[in-house]
């Protein structure tokens, strides 16, 4: 079914009884040309682009739970392309361009809203760093505008500009940055992949990876064994466990990142605001809730929930930056499991096992990468070659020293 | 040499009295860090405790470290690394029945469990603190550079508690 405005109106007139399931619920076949482990944003977009760009349609996406039940359904929805290092810049730039055409591409409203992202700075040194970053973004073909203090005030008059610890010197505005509806991205890609013949198999946990003579031949699942000559592991958060089935240890430690949503409020924050020095960022959802978060809890965890000291830290930072949110009531908080790598950048690469590919290590920035990650992973799985914008996301870069340490914080998983 | 006038870390701050709690600056006198070469040395305090030695006190301040407060170093130099910390730390006293309630808002340790002669190295808000249980309340040691901040934090909490009690 193709969605359109007319369709919405006619369905509305007749009680919305004509909507059917958006994707099939097929039983797994015994063999596919390729299998994607993980039915989150990245896995679904990989399947979609395998089908669309490379004509590979005899493929399955295996999901342990239901489509979009992992991090793609539990993040703070920020979409941006404001990276500095070659390797990251071109990748996220490519991703943002895909985002800008995504709704037309998928015929699905992902509510992509380019409301502008402002990164605040609080010292001369930090301003210089942001000038460099802004220039790097412009060189890449993306947009960046340096705002002085008064410039920031015009956009964000409600900030506490006079705070003593981090007085606001200015900000770097990235007008094309913004947010999108997280679930809709998963649903849109799922629908698109399904329409192209991809089998989306839910409630199907992979329990083993079959390897013969150094080459992958299939997987074992809770719904039987499935053969395939190409398998992609796209299981952010659980990458370590799935890779262990293939006898691999990854440069990844899983950490918990908390986020918070308040009750719905009238529109008051019409940008994405990032307060890096306080580890705090915030935006307002279309429902009106303030969506905000901070840094990871800092210890390895699969618990999907964090601890109170980080809650307090985030609230303190929020109150430091914008005291006006003090009366807003927090409705809920949650924790997502983050694949943290030693340099803070992801991995899209082959593995030592022939036919086994990995897309992992998205740290806490995987949402904005969903389109390009799938695009590049599909390219890698179909052609055996890294895509031009993802060629630095190598699995062995930690050993060879070709790190992509955007923040320059050093080789420790939780520091990024 | 010119005789310089020493200033206390809080520059002679007057005590704050509110709702049965008194916050005041304390002159610590000489403070010396004692780090024994062998941790089993006699006279060294057990973790979280204070050993009184006449007017002086030896306060456990961490693994293999104690602060000798208000007394001369004596023989410690022979068995431990000693470092003069005088003027590096600020002393505060928080006395009165409500002292434990005030600190409960800032210190993540259950201070009701501390008896006189106990101490704890922990945090006051975000800053490092040594808490010593004394008769009628607590003595707090913070870095001298943090003295004003510590006072501000404590004074704010004392005020808030007073307002809550007055409701």
């Amino acid at each position, binding site marked *: 079914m193709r969605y359109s405005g007319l369709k919405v109106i006619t369905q509305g007139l007749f009680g919305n009884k004509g909507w059917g399931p958006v994707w099939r619920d097929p039983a797994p076949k015994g063999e596919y040309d390729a299998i994607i482990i993980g039915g989150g944003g990245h896995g679904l977009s990989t399947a979609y682009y395998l089908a669309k760009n490379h004509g590979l349609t005899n493929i399955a996406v295996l999901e342990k739970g239901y489509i979009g039940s992992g991090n793609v359904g539990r993040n703070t929805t920020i979409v941006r392309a404001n990276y500095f290092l070659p390797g990251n810049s071109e990748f996220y730039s490519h991703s943002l361009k895909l985002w800008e055409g995504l709704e037309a591409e998928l015929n699905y409203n992902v509510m992509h809203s380019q409301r502008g992202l402002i990164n605040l700075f609080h010292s001369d040194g930090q301003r210089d760093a942001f000038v460099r970053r802004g220039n790097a973004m412009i060189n890449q073909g993306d947009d960046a505008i340096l705002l002085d203090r008064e410039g920031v005030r015009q956009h964000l008059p409600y900030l506490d500009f006079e705070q003593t610890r981090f007085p606001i010197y200015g900000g770097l505005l990235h007008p094309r940055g913004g947010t999108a509806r997280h679930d809709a991205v998963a649903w849109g890609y799922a629908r698109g992949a399904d329409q192209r013949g991809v089998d989306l198999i839910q409630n199907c946990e992979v329990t083993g990876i079959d390897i013969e003579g150094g080459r992958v031949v299939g997987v074992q699942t809770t719904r039987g064994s499935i053969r395939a000559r190409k398998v992609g592991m796209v299981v952010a958060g*659980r*990458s*370590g*466990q799935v890779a*262990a089935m293939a006898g691999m*240890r*990854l*440069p*990844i*430690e*899983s950490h918990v990142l908390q986020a918070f949503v308040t009750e719905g409020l009238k529109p008051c924050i019409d940008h994405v605001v990032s307060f890096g020095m306080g580890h705090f960022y915030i935006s307002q959802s279309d429902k009106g809730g303030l969506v905000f978060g901070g840094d990871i809890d*800092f*210890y*390895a*965890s*699969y*618990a999907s929930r964090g*601890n109170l*000291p980080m809650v307090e830290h985030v609230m303190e930072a929020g109150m430091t930056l914008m005291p006006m949110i003090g009366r807003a009531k927090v409705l809920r908080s949650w924790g997502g499991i983050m694949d943290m790598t*030693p340099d803070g950048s992801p991995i899209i690469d082959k593995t030592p096992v022939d036919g086994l590919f990995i897309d992992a290590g998205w740290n806490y920035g995987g949402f904005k990468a969903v389109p390009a990650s799938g695009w590049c992973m599909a390219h890698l799985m179909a052609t055996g070659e890294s895509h031009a914008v993802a060629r630095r996301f190598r699995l062995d870069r*930690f*050993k060879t020293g070709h790190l992509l340490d955007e923040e320059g914080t050093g*080789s*420790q*998983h*939780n520091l990024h | 040499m010119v005789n310089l006038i020493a200033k206390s870390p809080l520059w002679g701050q007057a005590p704050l009295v509110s709702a049965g709690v008194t916050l005041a600056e304390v002159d610590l006198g000489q403070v010396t860090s004692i780090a024994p070469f062998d941790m089993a040395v006699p006279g060294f305090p057990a*973790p*979280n405790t204070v050993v009184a030695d006449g007017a002086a006190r030896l306060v456990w301040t*961490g*693994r293999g*470290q104690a602060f000798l407060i208000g007394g001369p170093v004596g023989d410690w130099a022979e068995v431990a690394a000693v470092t003069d910390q005088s003027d590096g730390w600020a002393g505060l006293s928080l006395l009165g029945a409500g002292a434990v309630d005030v600190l409960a808002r800032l210190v*993540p*340790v259950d201070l009701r469990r501390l008896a006189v002669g106990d101490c*704890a*190295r*922990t*945090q006051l808000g975000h800053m*490092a603190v040594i808490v010593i249980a004394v008769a009628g309340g607590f003595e707090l040691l913070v870095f001298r550079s943090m003295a004003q901040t510590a006072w501000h934090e404590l004074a704010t909490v004392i005020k808030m508690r007073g307002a809550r009690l007055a409701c």
Partner: protein
Amino acid sequence: MRITCPLCGPRDRREFYYYGSEDYLTQPALGDFDAIDAHLHLRDNLAGEVRDLWYHEMGCAAWLLVTRNTVTHKISDVVQVAGGGVGILAKMKPEEGAL
């Protein structure tokens, strides 16, 4: 989450700094790049019981080896790294709800 420090007793998580896996305790041989790579970067990353290095940063400044379940956050043992590690459970009854 509360961690029972062998020296200080039960303390809030905020007093501790998390360093990482106990892998950091094993020094790889100089020149063995595979071992250095594994030491610095590669992790078992288990969902279950792990042993990690924590530092009692705001307390007694002891380095601790904490046995903790990464799924439940339950802490089952804490030992000091120095002095061969004297287990806390042998010396102290864990506080009610001290996880």
